[in-house]
C-alpha cells in the first residue's frame, strides 16, 4: 500500500476559504439557505465550513444539519459488510429552503442519489446544491455533478481518496492511497 499527499493542511485551508466565499457569493446572508453534511464523513467538512462562515466571515444565521443516508442506500443486502447507520440531525424546516449538501469525496454519486431521496422526508426544498472537497471525475455511475468543488482528482478505481480532519485524524490532509 502506497500513499501520496494530494493536499496538505495549508492547501486544504485555502480551498475551504475559497468554498466559503463561493457559498457567500451565491447565498448572501444565508437567510434562506441551510447547510447539510452527509454522514458519516461529510459532517466534518460541513462543521468546518459552518464555523468559518460564522467566525471568519461573520455570518450569524448559518443553519447546519446532518443527514444520514443509510436507510436510503441502494446496496442494502448487497455487500459483505452490514450497513451502519449514523445520526440524522435536522432541527429546522427545509421546505422552500435552498439546501447545500456537503460531502468530502464525490465518487460514484450513489450517496448523493440516496441523499436526494432522504431529504424529501423532511419537506420539499426550493433547490439543492452540492459541495464536495474532492471530485473524483470519470468514476461517476450516475449523472450527478458538484456545484462547488475543492479539487478535481483523476483516480483510478483501485485507488482510494482519504480526507483527514484535524478534529478526527489529527491533521488536515487529503491522501491518494494505492491499495
Amino acid at each position, binding site marked *: 500500500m502506497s500513499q501520496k499527499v494530494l493536499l496538505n493542511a495549508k492547501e486544504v485551508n485555502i480551498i475551504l476559504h475559497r468554498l466559503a466565499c463561493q457559498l457567500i457569493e451565491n447565498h448572501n446572508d444565508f437567510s434562506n439557505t441551510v447547510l447539510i453534511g452527509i454522514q458519516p464523513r461529510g459532517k466534518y467538512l460541513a462543521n468546518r465550513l459552518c464555523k468559518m462562515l460564522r467566525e471568519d466571515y461573520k455570518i450569524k444565521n448559518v443553519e447546519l444539519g446532518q443527514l444520514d443516508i443509510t*436507510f436510503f442506500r441502494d446496496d442494502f*443486502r448487497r455487500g459483505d459488510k452490514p450497513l451502519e447507520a449514523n445520526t440524522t440531525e435536522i432541527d429546522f424546516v427545509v421546505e422552500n429552503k435552498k439546501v447545500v449538501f456537503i460531502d468530502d469525496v464525490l465518487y460514484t454519486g450513489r450517496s448523493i442519489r440516496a441523499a436526494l431521496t432522504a431529504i424529501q422526508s*423532511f*419537506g420539499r426544498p426550493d433547490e439543492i446544491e452540492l459541495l464536495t472537497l474532492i471530485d473524483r471525475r470519470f468514476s461517476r455511475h450516475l449523472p450527478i455533478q458538484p456545484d462547488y468543488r475543492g479539487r478535481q482528482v483523476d483516480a483510478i478505481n483501485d485507488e482510494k481518496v482519504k480526507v483527514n480532519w484535524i478534529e478526527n485524524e489529527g491533521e488536515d490532509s487529503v491522501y491518494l492511497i494505492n491499495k
Partner: protein
Amino acid sequence: MSELSVNHLLGIKYLTKQDIQLIFETADHFKEVINRPIKKVPSLRDITIANLFFENSTRTKLSFELAEKRLSADIINFSASQSSVKKGETLIDTVNNILSMKVDMVVMRHPNPGAGVFLSNHISASIINAGDGAHEHPTQALLDSYSIRERLGEVKGKNVVIVGDVLHSRVALSNIFALQLQGAKVMVCGPKTLIPKYIDKLGVKVETNLRKALDWCDVANMLRVQNERMDISYFPSTREYAQQFGVTKELLNSLDKEITIMHPGPINRGVEITSDVADSDQAIILNQVENGVAIRMAVIYLLASKIKQ
C-alpha cells in the same frame, strides 16, 4: 459489531448483550425516522414479510405492521381464525404454503410455547417470535428495556419489579432475561398462586408484599391479569387483587422516591393500576407503544440485512 449473532428472533435467551445494544442503537435511528414529516424509508422494498397470528393480537400486530410499512416491506397478513388451520392443516404445511409465495420473513404469534423454535428448524425464512404461549415475547421485552434506558439513562444497575400475573406472562419471562442480560436486578411480585414455583432459579427475587417491592424498585412493570388464560380461580376476587396488588396514586406518593411505571397493555384501569397513575408523568406506557414501532423496525431491519440476495 454491526450484525446480530442470530438469524431469527425467537427469544431473548438466544441473544447476547451486544445484540441488544445493537438493536437499541439501530432503534435510536428509527425513532428519529418515525418522527420525521415523512416517516418512511425504502430499505426493505424487496422484502416480503408474512404476519402469522395464530392467536388474537391487536397492538402487537398493529405495531409490527406499522414497522414493516415504515421500512417499505411488502406484507401479507394471516390470522388463524379465518384460515385452513381450522380444517386441520399442520403448522409446517401452513407456513410452507405461505413461503412458496416467496416470503422472506415470518412474524409469528402462536399459543404453543416453542412454536417459533420448532418452525426455525424446518423452514429457511427468518422468524420473529411475536409471542409463543407463556414462553417469550422478545420484542416486548426489548421495547420495555429500551423505554427504561430512555427514561433512566441506562438499564444496568436498576431495580425492576414485575408485578402481577407472572405465571401466564411471556412478557415477564422475556423481561427477566433481557433485564438480567443488561445488568439490572429483577424482582417479581404478585399473589403466590400467580408466581411460578421455580422462578427463583432464574435469579430473581420474589416478594408478595407490593409496598415492599415498590420501596425496593426504580421501575415497576405492571402486568395485566390475564383472565382469559385462567382456567381456575387464582385469587378470591378482582377487587381483592386490586387492593393487594393495584398501584394507586396514594401508594406512589407515600414512597420516598419517584418510580417509573410501565405496563405492556391493554390496561385494566382500576385493577393493576388506577387511572390517575396510568395518566401520570410517572407512567411511560405510551412511550412504550411509540418505542415498540422503533424497536420492531430495528429488529426487522437487522434480520433482513442478513438475508442474502
